[in-house]
């Protein structure tokens, strides 16, 4: 279909740089599917994008309720996109509850496409509306597009011999079709997807395709929609792309690290939201020598991974929230036995069960200190969905080369969110070389590499290198059990030193801006996107700020003390009450200013900009 045919002739086409759309409806309305279809098409025509699904913890929440609302937000643009957008320009609300939940977030004068068929008294009551917001002036500040989506979908499918329930299920494709017209997206990618998804069920292929096309034609022909929009291609780095979630990124990064180190990948894991998708993804790839073990509990998950690491696999465990608390004791054993192990923590709202499907950065101090004894573990944090691939690879590399457990921190936001990933050339990814003990000399399990202080790990099955390790304190060099006071003091220091010097074997984080000035923003993890957007905005306005986004938290990078003292204010935005702030204050003896929002959501660029504005004004 050519662009001209798509657009029709009479209507105005406006060019936009960026748009944020939120698709919202009942859990059963298929909003995640609608969002991901819009995403794939948008990626396919060359816009940059970033997405955030927001779904309830309940699997099938009662229909029409506020807590049953499922949303999918996407920001897309002809220039760089770093976040799913602070507030949507467009809200597609399939029922009153979806409107109620998402309206406070919408931009002033934003567009609302409403399925009017669902605005009946029962649904209004369930959503807590006393009168119909379509009629009582609630929405007067917005551009409203009322469409009887359910009725129109039924009409479009009237000649199909399907029951009403199935027909009604197609209404999300009708809504998708309308947005495709509004934002000048082609339908063929979704049509192809429908064909492969419902292969062998010709009636469903026909119904969903018809609904999609009907939505598109309706928007094209009805007088309600006067303008459609065009968002030109983004100038992304050339290359082959795919969309990737953070959890897929971690799975791929781990498989790559295993291949590049010549080891099998062994995942010991217990299902937990929002980490389970890594287990699901890895369990598909048995032909990549990936072994997945769904353990009886969180403890068994990490224990099996550690056992596998001793036997020569790349041992990995994945978890979230309370799961990480259960793994603490085994993490201590991994520290003592100095075995390579990757512990992936997809942080979620806490404490306790907390907010299982929401995001948070509140496990940083636990990662640092949440174990008995002096128990140092390197910590790396992923900055975004695509970066999860690189962070997972790096975590595995350090674990294997420095014989240590490594904690990889991600969170619910980047775990489920997506962005385009520039697919790397596998041949250009470096090998991970691991030193092996010599077979012709006496094996000393705790003899160390002088540079890394790593030990050489003899794999079971190797003749002549039989040895025992365990959780009791080890004698330096021999690894025999030792209760000697001076030896313990020495070993505590060696373990700290081994982790402390890892910053020599990883890249320093980039400092954006000058190495001195009024304001340094220091950040880590998933706040990368919102902060990058804020920093770009400030630079555009000619304001001077510097920014350093940390990748390794433990140890802190070598280059940080070259500039951290040179700023009047160090601002640390976090989705917690100031955990990195505590560490920076302790390590560098400087004051810091926090920007802390703990709402289970990513930070908002606009709120951060407002805060920075206040700080900069105060410094003038």
């Amino acid at each position, binding site marked *: 279909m050519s662009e001209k045919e798509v657009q029709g002739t009479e209507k105005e086409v406006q060019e936009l740089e960026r748009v944020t759309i939120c698709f919202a409806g009942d859990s059963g309305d298929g909003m995640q599917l609608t969002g991901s279809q819009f995403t794939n098409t948008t990626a396919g025509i060359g816009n940059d994008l970033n997405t955030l699904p927001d779904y309830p913890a309940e699997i099938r929440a009662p229909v029409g309720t506020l807590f049953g609302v499922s949303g999918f937000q996407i920001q897309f643009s002809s220039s760089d996109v770093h976040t799913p957008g602070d507030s949507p320009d467009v809200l597609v609300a399939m029922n009153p509850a979806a409107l109620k939940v998402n309206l406070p977030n919408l931009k002033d004068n934003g567009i609302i496409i409403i399925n009017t068929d669902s605005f009946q008294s029962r649904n209004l009551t369930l959503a807590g509306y006393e009168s119909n917001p379509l009629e009582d002036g609630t929405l007067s500040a917005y551009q409203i597009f009322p469409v009887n989506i359910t009725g129109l979908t039924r009409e479009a499918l009237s000649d199909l011999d399907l029951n009403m329930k199935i027909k009604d299920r197609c209404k999300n494709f009708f809504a998708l079709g309308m947005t495709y017209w509004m934002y000048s997206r082609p339908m063929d990618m979704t049509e192809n997807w429908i064909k492969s998804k419902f292969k062998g069920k010709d009636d469903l292929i026909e119904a969903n395709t018809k609904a999609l096309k009907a939505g598109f034609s309706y928007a094209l022909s009805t007088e309600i929609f006067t303008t459609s929009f065009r968002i030109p291609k983004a100038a992304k780095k050339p290359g082959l792309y795919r969309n990737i979630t953070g959890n897929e990124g971690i799975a791929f990064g781990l498989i790559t690290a295993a291949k590049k180190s010549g080891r099998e990948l062994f995942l010991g894991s217990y299902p937990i939201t929002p980490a389970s998708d890594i287990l699901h993804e890895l369990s598909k790839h048995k032909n990549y020598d990936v072994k997945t073990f769904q353990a009886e509990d969180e403890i068994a998950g990490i224990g099996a991974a550690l056992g596998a690491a001793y036997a020569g696999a790349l041992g990995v465990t994945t978890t979230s929230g309370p799961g990480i608390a259960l793994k603490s004791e085994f993490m201590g054993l991994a520290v003592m036995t100095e075995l390579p192990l990757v512990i992936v923590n997809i942080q979620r709202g806490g404490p306790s069960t907390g907010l299982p499907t929401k995001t948070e950065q509140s496990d940083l101090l636990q990662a640092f200190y949440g174990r008995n004894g002096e128990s140092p573990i390197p910590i790396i944090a992923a900055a975004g969905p695509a970066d999860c691939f690189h962070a997972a690879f790096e975590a595995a590399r350090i674990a294997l080369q420095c014989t240590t457990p490594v904690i990889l921190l991600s969170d619910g936001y980047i775990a489920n969110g997506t962005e385009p990933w520039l*697919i790397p050339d596998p041949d250009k990814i470096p090998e991970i070389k691991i030193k092996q003990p010599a077979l012709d000399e006496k094996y000393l399990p705790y003899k160390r590499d002088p540079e890394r202080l790593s030990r050489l790990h003899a794999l079971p099955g190797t003749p002549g290198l039989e040895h025992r390790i365990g959780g009791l304190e080890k004698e330096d060099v021999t690894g025999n059990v030792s209760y000697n006071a001076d030896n313990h003091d020495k070993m505590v220091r060696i373990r700290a030193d081994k982790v402390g010097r890892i910053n020599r074997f990883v890249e320093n984080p980039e400092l954006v801006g000058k190495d001195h000035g009024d304001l340094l923003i220091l950040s880590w993890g998933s706040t990368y996107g919102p902060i990058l957007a804020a920093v770009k905005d400030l630079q555009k306005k000619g304001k001077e700020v510097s920014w350093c986004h940390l990748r390794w938290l433990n140890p802190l990078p070598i280059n940080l003390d070259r500039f951290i003292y040179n700023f009047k204010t160090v601002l640390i935005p976090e989705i917690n009450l100031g955990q990195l702030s505590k560490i920076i204050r302790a390590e560098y003896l400087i004051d810091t200013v926090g920007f802390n929002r703990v709402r289970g959501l990513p930070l908002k660029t606009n709120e951060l900009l407002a805060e920075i504005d206040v700080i900069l004004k105060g410094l003038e």
Partner: protein
Amino acid sequence: MEPIQLTKDDFTSNQETRWCPGCGDYSILAQMKKVLPTLGIPRENFVFVSGIGCSSRFPYYLETYGIHGIHGRAPVIASGVKLANPNLKVFVITGDGDGLSIGGNHLIHLFRRNIDITIVLFNNQIYGLTKGQYSPTSEKGKITKSSPYGSLESPFNPVQMALASGASFVARSIDRDPKHLEDTLARAAKHKGTAFVEVYQNCNIFNDGAFLSLTEPKEKKKHLLKMEHGKPFIYGENDELMLTWTGKNFKVVNKDLNENGHEILTHDENGSGPAMEFMLASLSLDAQLPTPIGIFRAVERDTYDDMMAAQMNATKKKKGEGDLKTLFTGGYTWTND
């Protein structure tokens, strides 16, 4: 390839054994060292995994690969070792506290999965390393440091637990009967699948004499029933007693008389059915009836490790050896020029 010639000395590590003098653990270690060279497995392929407790020091004293893990978790470490490298011969060494209290959950799931691992549980019915509190196998009313007025808990029967969880090999032996222990350990080690051996083990410091009636030369013949495959259950000072079945429960009779004509049972290790296995295991709880040792169950069923390997091979056959490029481009892709 030449047959492997190993002796028990090949399995002795340079570590000084640190159990209390007179501890039953010495006997178990000695019998294990006799068994290991007979298995035809190279020394470097043995891995001993333990948890925490007196028993769990075991791996340090063997010149094999080994991990002294954390409390109760040896079964999960061992599972990871075996699944990562199925060529290894993996043992779990645990005790009644380690295996049945803090680690009970892991043990039952290992039985259920039937991973090819041999488990030896030292049951001394007391917490030794923490100096004498009652354990999950201590008898009800036990007076200990933590139960000065008597414990309120009913004990676990480890053999019943293993049977109920689906273990494919379940046996019991005793530290003071070296020959029986050696034979039982050998059978367990040769079993393919999860093999469980409960060993009655005397803690001469905190629970001395717990199994006296089964070990004292004068007493033991009256109380100890050695089960043998295909044979009737006969015991007694002069082998005069026999265990029979009334249709409802066991009855001990004089083997030559059996006046009421109860059913004479013959032991069938290879699946006498869960009811009979369970009833035999329960005998140890009744002071009036003999305590059986030997093999309760030895059946073959698919091991988790074999099935995992089969699944991986089948996937490779179907999809081909995985290469990264295919992985990365598996979803919807597009090119930016």
